């Protein structure tokens, strides 16, 4: 198990963003669904060790990230793509990816090949030395994905990774996810329900800080056969579960 979360909560002032979440994830692609404000981003941030939990137990890659040493070890093996990732306009694609490879303390000798691999994997080989300010939104998103995967992470956290990608790029991205999920735990937080269904082996649905569903995409689809609304099977399961949770 790469991720073991038990009764995790996170509070900001009076707002309980995450109100008691328990999850386990091993290798594979894990989808995190839910409406805006459900707490997905906060949960992802805690898994990325960006913010500490208020209460509860968090174990990442068999380590407790509460202390500095293990947290650093986790971060070396981590890949994170935040929902809003800014960029340094004067950097090139390769420089940006390399910068974060160095900050993840990758051995310097391995960095050039790792950067080249990551850039080609997100299909930006023709733009490696282009300045970031010349790229479109979708390309910038792919640059973000490249920095997340450059160190071949064991735990990869992606927050809305397909924002700005056209359908063809999304297909390519899902193939990348499946490939990465063979060895690593990939957690994808997304609005796009059908995105999830195609690539994920496990799905969790969050609402108002809690997990209201945890199972396979097939099981989620099954929940939608009677009551869900929506055009596609997963969407129906999604709405059915949400309706039941709020009832």
């Amino acid at each position, binding site marked *: 198990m790469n991720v073991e979360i038990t009764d995790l909560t996170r509070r900001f002032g009076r707002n309980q963003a995450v109100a008691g979440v328990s999850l386990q994830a091993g290798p594979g692609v894990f989808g995190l669904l839910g409406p805006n404000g459900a707490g997905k981003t906060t949960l992802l941030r805690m898994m990325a060790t960006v913010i500490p939990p208020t209460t509860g137990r968090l174990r990442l890659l068999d380590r407790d990230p509460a202390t500095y040493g293990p947290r650093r070890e986790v971060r070396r093996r981590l890949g994170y793509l935040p929902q809003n990732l800014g960029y340094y306009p004067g950097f090139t694609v390769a420089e940006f990816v390399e910068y974060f490879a160095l900050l993840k303390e990758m051995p310097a000798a391995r960095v050039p090949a790792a950067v080249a691999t990551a850039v080609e994997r997100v299909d930006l*080989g*023709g*733009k*490696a*030395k282009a300045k970031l300010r010349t790229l479109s939104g979708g390309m910038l998103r792919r640059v973000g994905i490249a920095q997340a995967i450059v160190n071949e992470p064991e735990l990869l956290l992606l927050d809305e990774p397909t924002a700005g990608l056209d359908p063809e790029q999304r297909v390519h991205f899902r193939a990348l996810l499946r490939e990465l999920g063979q060895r690593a735990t990939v957690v994808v937080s997304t609005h796009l329900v059908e995105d999830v269904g195609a690539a994920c082996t496990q799905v969790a649905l969050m609402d108002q800080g809690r997990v209201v569903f945890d199972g396979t995409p097939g099981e989620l689809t099954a929940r939608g056969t009677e009551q869900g609304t929506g055009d596609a099977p997963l969407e129906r399961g999604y709405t059915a579960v949400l309706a039941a949770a709020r009832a």
Partner: protein
Amino acid sequence: MDDDDLVARVAAGDDTALRELFGRHAPWLAVRLRAVLPAADVEDVLQETFLAAWRGARGYRPQGACGGWLWGIARRQAALILRRRGPFTPAGQAGAALAAGLPAGPDGSDPADIALARADLEVAVATLGPEGSPDREVWRLMYEQDRPVAEVAELLGVPPGTVKSRAHRVRRLLRAALRVPEGGMW
């Protein structure tokens, strides 16, 4: 964008041009190298070839012979890699020959070198024209099959004088073709 323009852009430091060049030429270079080298060596040679092309593109004279230029670099890199293997003992050559699937040369010369030379020759002969064309036929009959001029003239249905002049042209063309990789900066 034709090959000469690509190489010019590579010389100017454009890495996307190198990428395009790689996409166009690496496959056939790999095929030709694979005929004489094991796969791991082919990969090494290709890597060194394109890095050398990246560094040395300024020395390329645009004459539409980009493929020949790249093959020349590849050939040299292959020779370097083979030479780096160490001193050539007869046992070593036999071992290498077995590994490459080639018969060892009778005088102990490096079989891979012979194979590379053979590959070079095939390329040069191909410049004479498609199979069945007059020059190729003269080459095949006179030099591969070692027939006398009179016999070749009869087989082709042309006067011996024509055969002799074609043979002369064939030799000239082959000399030129075999020399092209040697030109430029190497």
